[in-house]
């Protein structure tokens, strides 16, 4: 059993719970409950985007968060059989002018409810305050420049998340369709410093890495050779497709072979890894089918078990 020891970081709680390696996970979408009726044995844990399970009326609203009961009932059923991990989309940790404390409180309540062994969000920004101080959605996760200023901003936010929620918090390396010039650090150098200085873990999304590398002609192995693997707690694998002139992280079916190869490269180097999660969008379930989805999960399991993990 590996132990994720991130204590001793400024602003961090004195001690962290140990994290038990879980194995192979599946990202929840509306097609998943039907699949799990016949294939529950294919997964060791379920990953959810918690934001899908409630209505959020926005900061400052009375009764801001209201659970979608018909959805939580389904989740409760699965959670009775498998651990649940959260991979959220609403924190917008890189927003320069807002940090949503109410949202953080909601994640804390859900961590207490489902006992997530860890939780994560994206290293990006997706929400801003406009010039009149009103909340505004960017419509997607947008990239942050890998600069010292951003590092300090995000590290400060990580400290607040870690103070509020007593299980490891991970940030996911992002996919970006914009290449910001004149950045002060490379992406892996930024991730290495962020994880070291803030105490957050890393959710290494190998399909995001594949997507960025493919779009910009970069070498994913050069990225990985520069990366510190000790903070890697979870890995994402997924599929993508061409859209509007670029290869995108669309979660559109099977994981491409180069991503599986990256997984084979990474696994022996990740001593604190607790899970490999396959993501797909439910609109592609018809093409993937239950057998196709099962094949993806079985492949992830072979990688997991062959490397080290019983």
């Amino acid at each position, binding site marked *: 059993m590996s132990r994720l020891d991130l204590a001793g970081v400024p602003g961090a709680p004195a001690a962290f719970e140990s994290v038990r390696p879980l194995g192979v996970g599946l990202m929840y979408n509306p097609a998943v409950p039907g699949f799990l009726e016949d294939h529950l044995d294919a997964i060791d844990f379920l990953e959810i985007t918690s934001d899908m399970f409630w209505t959020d009326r*926005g900061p400052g609203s009375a009764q801001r968060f209201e659970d979608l009961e018909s959805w939580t009932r389904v989740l409760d059923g699965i959670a009775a059989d498998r651990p649940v991990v959260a991979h959220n989309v609403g924190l917008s940790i890189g927003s320069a002018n807002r940090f949503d404390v109410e949202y953080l409180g909601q994640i804390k309540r859900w961590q207490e409810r489902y006992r997530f062994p860890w939780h994560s969000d994206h290293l990006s920004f997706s929400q801003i305050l406009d010039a009149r101080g009103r*909340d505004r959605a960017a419509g997607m996760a947008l990239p942050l420049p890998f600069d010292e200023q951003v590092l300090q901003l995000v590290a400060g936010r990580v400290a607040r998340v870690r103070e509020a929620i007593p299980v490891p918090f991970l940030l996911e390396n992002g996919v970006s369709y914009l290449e910001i010039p004149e950045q002060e650090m490379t992406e892996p150098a930024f991730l290495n410093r962020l994880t070291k200085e803030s105490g957050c873990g890393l959710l290494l999304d190998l399909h995001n890495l594949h997507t960025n590398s493919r779009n910009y002609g970069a070498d994913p192995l050069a990225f990985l050779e520069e990366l510190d693997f000790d903070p890697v707690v979870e890995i994402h694998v997924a599929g993508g497709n061409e859209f509007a002139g670029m290869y995108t992280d669309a979660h559109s079916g099977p994981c491409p072979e180069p991503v599986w190869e990256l997984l084979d490269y990474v696994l022996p180097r990740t001593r604190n890894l607790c899970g490999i999660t396959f993501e797909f969008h439910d609109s592609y379930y018809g093409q993937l089918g239950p057998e196709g989805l099962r094949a993806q999960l079985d492949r992830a399991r072979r990688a997991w078990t062959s490397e080290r993990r019983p």
Partner: protein
Amino acid sequence: MSLEEFQRAIVDLVASPELCLSFRAEPGKFLERYELTDVERRRLSAVNRQRGMSTNCSLYRSNRITPIYTLLPLTCFVLGDVLGTEMEGYWRSEEFVDRQFLLEIERFGEHIRRRMRSGVLSIPVLGEVLNFELAWNALNVGPRNRVPAESRLLTFTHEPRELFRRLEARDPLPYRLPRGEFFVLLRALDGSIETTVLDADAARDLL
């Protein structure tokens, strides 16, 4: 302040292909709207020329359409050829506040109702179909197993069974339908939404 302005500029660009084009044509005019460092000005100029900006603009529009097209499919069908115009008008009048599907369709629904009240939209069955889909969605994600069950009573001026049969078959509009006062009761019952057409007496008893 500067990073905040940089992020606001990127969000503005992603939301508007027209703004991206005007930025390319007149960079100074766009950049003077924000308080930026020289590096940030160069960064914005560079990313605005990248093909990925078009991808982001397309993804933005796709993400905004998704809740409306997913949860209001019949309303979109009834809007037909004017759907694109109405969507663009909605986006111009309402900034993208959040990605909450239910709230987004309620905001779009209010936009359509305003357009109907002002007489711009006069598709006969539009209001009834919109009200039905908004009510259905509100019940579908709401609390279940309450006693009495959560419900909505809707009034129709067109015969609802025939209306929805033809809509589900995607028969092209307009329809010749019996006119009158019709009532549809939606009730959230264990895991599903029960839809019942009521006669006027039964509906008045409920009211």
